[in-house]
């Protein structure tokens, strides 16, 4: 169900990295060291946490960063009042959460949203309310192809393309079987892009779709085998992906195919969960910088969570994405005219004006721009599953696909290329 719940970094790894830096100084907003005391600026966020999966790590990290900003001067002395709601994976609850945060509350923007369904339900609400959503954990097309939502994470489509491109260039893939969820704005959307990409390179791709309600994945694996593919792309949430891998292990298929996957398998519990059989044979695309890159933003995020978050806030990619959305939001707010901070329209304009923000967590620049589509993050890393972790096999690379033509045009127009 959940596409992008990624990289749940084990707290142990974090502690190890923290050990070397002791209590690192945090870098938040104005960095005054003085608590903000002015009238609060209200910001909303929606996450999904119920039976199929917990997608709250992005709002958790965003909340920690905002607390840190509030303790360091806020936005020109005004604290951020961050209010989050749970959509419970339920479309009605998602609509209610948006009603509460967007219509009943004078929020100026939504930051850190992480959900599988919320964006589909509320995209029109956001547009009508003229509010911008700086989401962090997105899995469906509505997140990337609507005017008022911009997400820090890549989503399944670019991540799939990145994995497919690596397999085509480095592993000699000619025919990729894309095992996706039978959901139009998720699996079908993202597998179609792989097919277009492979055909543009003289290869081919077959989509193998799994019904999300189906418990058994074996028949999908068999279908992928029957398609004549040489590479299998597991475009699935981690739980189903694990099931497919264990079914493949049962059949001892490891050496007959290349095995690639988008970001959901970049999760620190994966190497242990897939087991020794797969070490060195499974390639995973990562949307944000992997742990070992550990640049200033990665360290700051960890330190912020440590000092302003709670111990059980997940340290994962979504957390990083939530932190990044919050950091970019604060940066945009600080650049605004202080008199207009309570004006939703002015804040939306400021967010649309974001261009050329950078972070070591992201390969390219972050921007929003005035467009009906937003996908600032479409470059990433390729990793290999090894014992106890992941090894980088290709550093930051841009995905080459006709899908990104309008994005590249927009970036050129904004002067980012």
């Amino acid at each position, binding site marked *: 169900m959940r596409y992008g719940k990624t990289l749940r970094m084990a707290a142990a790894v974090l502690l190890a990295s923290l050990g070397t830096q002791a209590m690192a100084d945090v870098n938040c907003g104005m960095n005054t060291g003085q608590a903000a005391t002015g009238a609060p600026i209200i910001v909303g966020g929606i996450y999904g946490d119920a039976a199929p999966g917990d997608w709250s790590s992005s709002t958790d990290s965003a909340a920690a960063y905002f607390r840190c900003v509030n303790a360091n001067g806020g936005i020109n002395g005004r604290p951020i009042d961050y209010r989050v709601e*749970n959509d*419970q994976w*339920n479309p009605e609850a998602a609509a209610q959460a948006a009603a509460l945060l967007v219509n*009943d509350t004078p929020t100026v923007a939504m930051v850190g949203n992480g959900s599988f369904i919320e964006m589909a339900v509320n*995209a*029109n609400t956001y547009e009508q309310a003229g509010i911008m959503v700086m989401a962090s954990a997105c899995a469906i097309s509505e997140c990337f192809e*609507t005017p008022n939502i911009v997400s820090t994470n890549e989503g399944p489509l670019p991540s799939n393309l990145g994995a497919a491109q690596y397999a085509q260039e480095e592993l000699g893939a000619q025919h990729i079987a894309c095992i996706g969820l039978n959901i*139009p*704005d998720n699996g079908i959307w993202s597998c179609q892009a792989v097919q277009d990409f492979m055909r543009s390179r003289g290869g081919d791709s077959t989509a193998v779709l799994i019904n999300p309600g189906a418990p058994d994945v074996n028949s999908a694996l068999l279908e992928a085998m029957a398609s004549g593919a040489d590479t299998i792309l597991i475009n699935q949430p981690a739980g189903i992906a694990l099931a497919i891998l264990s079914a493949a292990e049962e059949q001892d298929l490891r050496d007959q195919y290349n095995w690639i996957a988008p970001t959901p398998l970049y999760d620190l519990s994966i190497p242990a969960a897939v087991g020794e059989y797969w070490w060195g044979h499974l390639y995973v695309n990562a949307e944000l910088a992997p742990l070992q890159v550990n640049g200033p933003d990665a360290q700051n995020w960890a330190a912020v969570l440590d000092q302003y978050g709670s111990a059980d806030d997940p340290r994962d990619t979504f957390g990083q994405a939530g932190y990044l959305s919050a950091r970019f939001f604060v940066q945009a707010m600080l650049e605004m005219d202080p008199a207009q901070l309570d004006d939703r329209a002015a804040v939306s304009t400021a967010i649309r004006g974001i261009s050329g923000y950078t972070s070591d967590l992201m390969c390219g620049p972050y921007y929003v721009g005035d467009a009906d589509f937003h996908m600032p993050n479409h470059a990433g890393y390729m990793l290999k599953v090894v014992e106890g972790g992941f090894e980088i096999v290709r550093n930051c690379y841009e995905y080459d696909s006709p899908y990104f033509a309008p994005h590249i045009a927009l970036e050129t127009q904004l002067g980012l290329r």
Partner: protein
Amino acid sequence: MKGLFHVTPSGWAGFALAAFAVLVLPGISSSYWLSVFTSASCFLLAIAGVAFLYARLGMVSLTQVGLMGVGGWIALRLNYAFDFPFEVNLALAALSTMVFGWVLALPALRMRGLYLALVTLMAAGGLEILFATFQFPNGGDGFWGVKTGSSDPFRRPFLAQSAEDYLRYVIICAVLGFVFIELHRRLQPGRAWALIRRSEASAMAAGVNVTLYKTWAFGITGLLGGAAGALLAGSLGLLDDGTFRASESVMIFALAVVGGARYWQGALVAAILYKVLPALLNIWGVDADLSYVIFGAGLLHAVITAPDGLAGQALQGLRSLLRGKGRRDA
């Protein structure tokens, strides 16, 4: 015929409550609660259908939420295919779902009790898979009408464009649904159903066409479910297969029993438990997983302790209170 439009005290109470809900409730509700109450009112209509089937005929339908999905699917499909006003979509969705209910019911009606419940559960399971596979129309091309990207707008009723008016609209539809059921109960079908509930054999001996009236009842349930689904589609502007799981159909039936299937207040209690209580728990910041535990425990407790449902228990209490007071006064 004389008693047909006679309004009982309970009926007056219902109309008074509906009047309050239509006149006052939307004005004092925030956008969040408007959305909660609108959902609750849609499900109220659907629950009224299951409760009616269970109370009047002793038949159990575990596919009501699936039927809502069918109604919602049809309403969305019509909305994007044609330029009909909302009312036409609503009526067509309700009628088509009624026909769908008949088709489902005709072979199933030979079964009784648990087996009927199970065959409807199988239908709900099948519908769940169909919704998950084909999704709900959102303005795309082709028969299934699904596209990626944000959905096209769904036309709300001309009279109810705003969220407040739409809540009023849905409440009025729900009241009409209850009146529709009550009128049926007071006419020929109601008498036939009462007889069938007692004994199918004697109903048959008395010349009642058992199959016809059972099918008819199933059709009414489908009609109400379909209308509820179309109204829900109007509330959200789109539908998601997550709303229409087979387990939700079972849940709706369980809540109808918990509320008290014989009373209109029971359906109301059920709708409140199903939609308003979780919204309240959410506002109070209860963990979503734990609210499942609370919900499940409440359900079990009510099934164990209240044979006539919560509404039955409350009315019983009210009655004995009034009687006690009357005795003292005398």
